[in-house]
Each structure stands twice: as C-alpha cells, then as structure tokens.
C-alpha cells in the first residue's frame, strides 16, 4: 500500500486546514473528485501543480498519484511569474492547477475556478510525447530559479521513501506535523508523504516561524514535530521554541543543508532537556528525497555527520573520487530537460552518485567534505554557482566569481568601484529570491585563474577561510 492509497473509511484526521479537520475518508474523496475535473486526454497526462498550503492542492496531488493517469510537476506558488511562463512555454503542460490569482497564460483556458484554485487546460496538445508508465511525479532541481532541469520520480520511489521515513522517525497515527516548509519543495513534500504513510496528520498554514500566529496554531493543534532547513533552526532559536507551548512536541528534524555545529549542539542539548528527539538528516530531490539520518541518541558524539542510510538504503564512498554514493529504491529515474525526456525509463537503476564528497567512520557514519558540483543551499534551496556567475555577467557585463557554503554565498567582485555590493545583492534577490543576509560580496584586485584559464575557486576558498 502506498501513502496515497489513504486508509478508507476512517474518520481519523489527515489534514488540518483553516482549523478544520479533514479526515482520511474525506481527503480520498476530494482526491478522486479532482481527477474527474480533468479532461480525458486519452493518454497519461502531464501538468503543473502550484501546490499551495490548502487541502485543494493536496487533493489534486493525491488524485494524480491515485489515478496513475496524471503526472504533476510540483512547483511553489510564489515562483516568479516570468519564470513560470518560461517553464510553461518550454514544457507545454496539459494542465495547470494553481492558486486563484494566477494570470491565464496564452494557449490555456479555464477548466474550473473557485475562491482557492484554478484548473487551466491547454487548448491542443495532440502531438505530446508519451509519458513513461512508471513516472509518478516531477520536482524541480532548484525551486525558486525556475530551472528547466527536473527530477523524474517513480511511484515506487516516493512510496518507499515515505515508508522508510515513517519507519526511522517512528511515526504513528497520533503524530502531527505542520507546514514549516513549502510543499513544492522535496523536503516539505516528504513531510506530507511520510505522515500520510503513517496515518498521521499535517497542519496547513502559510504563517512562518517568525510570527506569533504560527506558534498559536502549532500549539492549539498540538503538533508533535517541527521540521526545518538551517535557517528555520536559527528562527526557532530566536523565537524561543521551548517557551511556545508546544506541549505535544516530540521531535525536531533538520535537512536542506549543513546546520552549523553550535546550533546542532544547542538543539541536541535542548531536545535532551525537553525529552524530544532531534534528527539531523540529509537528502536530495534526486532521492525522493531522504538519504540518511543520525539516530538522535548518537548525535552528541557524531556532530557534523549526516548519519547512516535510511532503512532499505545503502551508503558508501567511491574510493577513486571520495564521492558519496547512495543505493536504494527511492533513487530517481533520472533528469528531464524536455518534454520528450518524460518518456524515458529508469536511467540509474537505483544508484545515485550524490555529487557530495565525504568519508565514513568505522561505524559507517558519513561526514561530508565538499561538493563536486558547484552549488550551495540557501534556505534549503539549491542555487547553482555557475548560473549565478552567468546571470551576474549578463547583467553587469563583468565576470564575477561565486563560491560559498550553505546559507553563505560569496560573490567575488573584481570591479568594486564600478559595481556596488548593493546592486549585486539586489539582482540576486530579484532573480533568485536570495536574501542579502545570505550573501557577502568581497572585493578582489583580480579573479585568480588556473593555467587553463578557468577560475581558481580553490584559491578563493583559501582567501575566504
């Protein structure tokens, strides 16, 4: 049984939406009703689902999975409209489900509209290439940048990951999570998936950790866990988590980039004092998404580790390159860059080369030591450093270098008199939604180059050290 099968005839709550409870039974009905609203395309269809924090969108998501006839690309509703339009033009989805305010793009007509959402259907798509029968879901490799590169996930992959998560977190039907992370983001989605797999529930809200309303809702609804990326944990600390009246809290879970050691230690201590469990975890969209976790009891001795493989998975280090390799049923089928790629089958056979470098200790605990690919995670979102350099070069007519680490992007500016720091951070904010506090701009006389003419990132990282 997969998490989207939803136990039927149970009045147990699945979602808390606007303070009302939606049972598993009701949610199943809503999901199947949604599918009836889509036209019969005569083939498996592909659409964009801008998944807002409302039961309507979750019903759409589950309806697609249950029917096996519609494959959604999950997107965040706040994706820049211009980037969304580019994606629509490139992929030509058969349908789009979005929050009510969306502007109608060319080639689409409104199928159904209400206060909350809109279903848009593409006018003619007769020649659309077929979709693979195993393809269940698509996710973006980098949510806020509107990149074309998507991750293809099979039904098996997401179902098995949901079950594995429920297992290592020991979730049961009394558990209750809350949307601290966007549902269109792989980590946020996995919280929904795993809680449904366990017969547990999820509180839907648009409030953030920095607002009183969030903590009121979390307290009133009796949440049992809080999940976040590194910046979420900075916020939880600043908001005084232990004073917020979460009397049913039993676990904290963290992924989406490296949390600094002082904060890991802080939350490890706080959790132990409060009788909570604190799970440090690691994953990638390419793994549906979770890969490893640190058993809470071992965290104090393993600070800095991403832990051991989730149940059903296996981690090892490639001795030739030090690259971390994960094997498991939750590994993606592969990427997609065009609509035709959606017909492809499983390219990876369950083996994921993570692009992260690391080592394993004698108990198999993994410690990461760098990335092969040039990206950093800012607030959990993957930001490609080469793309940042290209964008800045295009805007300013100048070469910059981009380096950094999670939540700390560094831009190296060889022309500080011509280009003010503030104009650089403004561009990054406008286009990539990167908040200035996560960027530092450093002036250099000239950008160091390797003998082959490429940027010498290692030297820059040395300067930054």
């Amino acid at each position, binding site marked *: 049984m997969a998490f989207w099968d939803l136990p039927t005839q149970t009045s147990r709550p699945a979602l808390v939406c606007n303070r009302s409870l939606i049972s598993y039974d009701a949610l199943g009905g809503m999901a199947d009703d949604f599918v009836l609203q889509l036209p019969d395309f005569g083939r498996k269809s592909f659409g964009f689902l801008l998944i807002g924090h409302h039961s309507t969108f979750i019903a759409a998501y589950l309806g697609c999975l249950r029917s096996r006839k519609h494959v959604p690309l999950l997107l965040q509703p706040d994706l820049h409209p211009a980037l969304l339009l580019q994606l629509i033009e490139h992929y030509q989805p058969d349908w789009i489900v979005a929050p009510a305010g969306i502007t109608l793009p060319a080639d689409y007509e409104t199928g159904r509209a209400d206060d909350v959402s809109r279903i848009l259907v593409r006018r003619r798509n007769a020649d659309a290439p077929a979709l693979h029968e195993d393809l269940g879901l698509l996710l973006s490799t980098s949510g806020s940048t509107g990149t074309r590169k998507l991750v293809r996930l099979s039904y098996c992959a997401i179902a098995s990951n949901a079950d594995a998560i429920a297992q290592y977190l020991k979730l049961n039907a009394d558990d209750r999570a809350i949307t601290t992370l966007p549902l269109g983001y792989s980590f946020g989605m996995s919280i929904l998936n795993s809680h449904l797999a366990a017969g547990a529930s999820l509180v839907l809200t648009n409030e*953030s950790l*920095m607002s009183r309303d*969030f903590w009121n809702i979390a307290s009133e609804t009796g949440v049992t866990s809080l999940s976040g990326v590194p*910046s979420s944990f900075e*916020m939880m600390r*600043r*908001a005084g988590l232990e004073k917020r009246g979460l009397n049913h809290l039993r676990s904290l879970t963290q992924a989406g980039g490296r949390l600094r050691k002082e904060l890991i230690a802080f939350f490890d201590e706080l959790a132990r004092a409060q009788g909570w469990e604190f799970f440090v975890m690691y994953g990638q969209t390419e793994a549906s998404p979770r890969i490893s976790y640190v058993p809470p009891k071992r965290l104090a001795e393993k600070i800095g580790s991403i832990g051991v493989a989730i149940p059903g998975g296996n981690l090892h280090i490639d001795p030739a390159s030090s690259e971390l390799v994960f094997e498991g049923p939750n590994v993606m089928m592969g990427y997609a860059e065009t609509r035709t790629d959606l017909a492809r089958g499983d390219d990876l056979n369950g083996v994921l080369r993570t692009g992260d470098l690391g080592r394993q200790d004698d108990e198999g605990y993994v410690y990461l030591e760098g990335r092969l690919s040039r990206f950093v995670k800012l607030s959990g979102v993957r930001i490609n450093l080469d793309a940042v350099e290209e964008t800045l070069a295009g805007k300013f007519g100048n070469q910059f270098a981009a380096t950094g680490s999670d939540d700390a992007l560094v831009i190296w500016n060889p022309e500080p008199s011509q280009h003010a720091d503030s104009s650089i951070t403004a561009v990054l904010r406008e286009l990539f939604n990167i*908040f200035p*506090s*996560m960027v530092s701009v450093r002036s250099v006389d000239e950008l160091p180059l390797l003998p082959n003419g490429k940027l010498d990132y290692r030297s820059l990282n040395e300067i930054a050290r």
Partner: protein
Amino acid sequence: MTLHDVFAKALGIPNDAVHDGLEYNSIKEWDSVAHMALVSALEERYNILLDTDDVIDLSSIGKAREILSKYGIEA
C-alpha cells in the same frame, strides 16, 4: 538613523516605501528571513536584546514602536 531608516535598510526597500502601517509578510521583502535581519538591526541600532516574545510579535512598524518603548526607547 530613524526607525524607518532601520526598516528600510534591513528589508532592502526605499525609505518612502516604509510607513507606519507596514506589516510583516505584506510585502515580499519582509519575509521570515528578512525578519531575522530586521531583529538584529533593531538590536544593534538601539543597543537592546529583544526577548523571544518581542521577536514574534514584531509584526508591524507600529508594533516595533510599542516594543521599543517597553525598553524605554522613543523611536
């Protein structure tokens, strides 16, 4: 530096976009990540340490004034 200046700088918006009715989450520039920067900026400017209740109650410029007056600051 006035209170409006602190907000404008921390949120990265022009000074004339800051008005007393400005509320958290009403503009995209004042999201939760910006809020953390705002809290630090206020603490630095007024030389105080905001307590956790203040941090999550700081939902508008008006509230900011109220909170600061608790610390004896007329902003």
